């Protein structure tokens, strides 16, 4: 088991290195660098000025060297201007050329400066990630129990009317991407002219103009049911159908097992069979699916945060990518790749742990 985890960790590190290198290469292509120079410096710079601007900031070093500097295994670049002022990757307002450390990369905790937000990448990411953490937490709280309940009820009696209708519901939710369901929800629940909000307002059931808020910007300060319900349910619904279908499949399989029949023949009541005998075995497979669903949620988070204007991690990704903010984009990809790989690892370990029939030798 220990060896298995170690090997997986090794693969993880290698994958993370490869992926960040790919992002590094793609963001450091010549046209992208030119765009950065013109955005940050002056939009009307000529080629010569762009060149010197880039050289001064160490962008023109060969790719592997730049990557090494970013990672913190190679000394950061320094540049001496004609007037003798030394600038460099590790030199900032706190330390001079003499006191600056030689290495400053991700490994030393220096994530660089975001050119869009004009703040250090680590502070941008930690701040935004916290916001997205709240969103993810509520999504999980809504999605997991909901999906499991739908799946168990549908799989309890295969082919029954409950099964048919619940399965159709789960197919419907998997067929509705976030940008469609979000639009429909806003139309139905958060518009002051359409849907049910005007009706409820007229009847005096709600004080405000709309039942829910169509933007979640205010949720960044204070989360309330009214401003956070729509983004959460939009993400949760899309993931819910898939988990529910997996739970249903695993439940139907368990319900046809011999020991369930034995229990039934012994005279155990149907609810007791489901609760005591079937449920525990039926929930092994959905566990892996739920863990593997987390990277997918990341996608939904990007869409929903853009749609509802909730400035979290996904919104930051869009900003960083749209403005070719190299350091921030790298930071974002490191975080998301680590999230994906860690959930894969947890799902593998958890599967082994939950299912005594599988043993890693």
């Amino acid at each position: 088991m220990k060896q298995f985890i170690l090997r997986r960790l090794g693969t993880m590190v290698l994958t993370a290195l490869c992926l960040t290198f790919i992002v590094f290469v793609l963001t450091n292509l010549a046209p992208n660098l030119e765009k950065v120079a013109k955005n940050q410096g002056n939009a009307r710079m000529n080629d010569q000025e762009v060149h010197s601007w880039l050289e001064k900031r160490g962008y023109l070093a060969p790719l592997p060297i730049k990557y090494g500097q970013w990672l913190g295994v190679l000394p950061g670049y320094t540049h001496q201007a004609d007037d003798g002022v030394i600038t460099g990757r590790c030199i900032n307002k706190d330390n001079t050329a003499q006191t600056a450390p030689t290495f400053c990369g991700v490994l030393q905790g220096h994530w660089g400066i975001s050119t869009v937000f004009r703040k250090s990448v680590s502070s941008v990411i930690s701040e935004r990630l916290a916001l997205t953490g709240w969103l993810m937490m509520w999504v999980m709280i809504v999605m997991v129990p909901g999906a499991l309940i739908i799946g168990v009820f549908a799989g309890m009696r295969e082919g029954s009317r409950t099964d048919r209708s619940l399965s159709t519901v789960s197919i419907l939710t998997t067929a509705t991407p976030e940008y469609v369901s979000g639009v429909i929800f806003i139309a139905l629940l958060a518009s002051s002219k359409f849907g049910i909000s005007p009706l409820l307002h007229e009847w005096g059931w709600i004080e405000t103009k709309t039942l829910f808020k169509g933007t979640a910007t205010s949720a960044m300060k204070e989360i309330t049911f009214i401003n956070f319900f729509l983004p959460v349910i939009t993400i949760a619904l899309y993931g819910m159908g898939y988990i529910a279908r997996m739970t249903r499949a695993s439940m139907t399989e368990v319900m046809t097992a011999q020991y369930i029949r034995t229990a039934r023949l012994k005279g155990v009541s149907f609810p007791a069979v489901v609760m005591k005998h079937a449920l525990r075995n039926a929930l092994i497979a959905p566990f892996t699916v739920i863990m593997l669903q987390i990277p997918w949620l990341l996608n939904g988070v990007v869409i929903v945060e853009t749609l509802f204007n909730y400035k979290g991690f996904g919104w930051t990704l869009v900003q960083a990518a749209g403005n070719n903010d190299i350091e921030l984009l790298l930071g974002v990809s490191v975080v998301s790749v680590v999230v994906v790989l860690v959930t894969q690892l947890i799902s593998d370990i958890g599967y082994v742990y939950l299912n005594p029939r599988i043993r890693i030798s």
Partner: protein
Amino acid sequence: MEPLSWGAIITRIFLQFGPVWIALIATFALSIAYKRKLGLYGKLFDSTIGMIGFALVMFWVFTAIIGGPLDMIVTHDALTQISGLKNKTPGIAVPGAEEKELYSYYLLGGDNLARDVFSRMVKGSWVVVAIAPLATVFAFMVGITLGLPAGYFGGKLDTLLSFFANLILAFPVILLFYLLVTPEIVETGIPSYMAAVLFIFPLIFAAVLLNSRYHTQPRIRTPMMIGVLVVLGWLYLSTISEVGSKIAVLPAYLDGFDVPGGILVVFVSVVFVNSPTVFRIVRSLAMDIKTRDYVAAAQTRGEGAWYIMLWEILPNARGPLIVDFCLRIGYTTILLGTLGFFGLGLPPESPDWGSTINEGRKLLSIYLHPALPPALALLSLVLGLNLLADGLREESLRD
């Protein structure tokens, strides 16, 4: 003129879709009449869910073909703006329609640039129906050509290919799209090179397929191979080479058709994102099937490895693959919508559903009608594909 009432709008839309209804009824009548002779396709008509799914999918396929290249269902040009109709509600009359010989109403209203929402929705279906299935086919070609040997041979090859597949899968899809589809990257030609690599897989697939089957009969094989490869090779070169772009291998007089740059980039990134998943499915199917007796029998007969993979393993893996194919077209449709939603790749005036939803969402709390029709259209198409996959799965498991 007065705006139309909702009843009149629905009637008129129903009539506009006339050719689609005729095509749908004809398809269903023929299929149900001959369903016992049509194999798995015929059996689909035994399951209600499968039939509903098939009807939804075919509705959009017919709408796309009749409304897109044949230009029939649409009431207005998808790009023409008519002044005075900006953000107007459904059923609004077009001013001066009779003199200009235009259709006299905007059936589903006008969008924020005063274009007809209904016509844009119909035109948008063509973008999806033209790209999604083809991109899925390419993803399957790549996945099958790499997944079969990985599953069959195992060992180092499998480890290496699986590592690359997991690498792509660990990337957040949207980040990948942003990295591949920005104009700066397109300028460097990376998507064109990726297209050159990804699009060669169907050629390899066809060549290996024919060679493994007929290599004992060179007299049949050689002419067949030459014929197939010349046609496919020409299609391949015409697709990737574009005069004036980074890859211009083919002189202009031989270049059969040009794929517009934006579409090619979108196509490549969608294929790129989908292939690793197909690879994993094919690989696990191959690992399962290679332990069967008929594979052992073929090995004992002395058949080549590629013959066994393509003519013994692949046909026996077709059930799950067909089901996944349907689901994957749906997923590709969602991905295309995502690209449009973030304004990536496709030109901004493109009528595809994702871009239209993106444009409509900005004024969503005041004007619903520009965003809702494409959203519901996308929903119904993907729902249809999922139901179709469900029906197929049920029917293929039955025997």
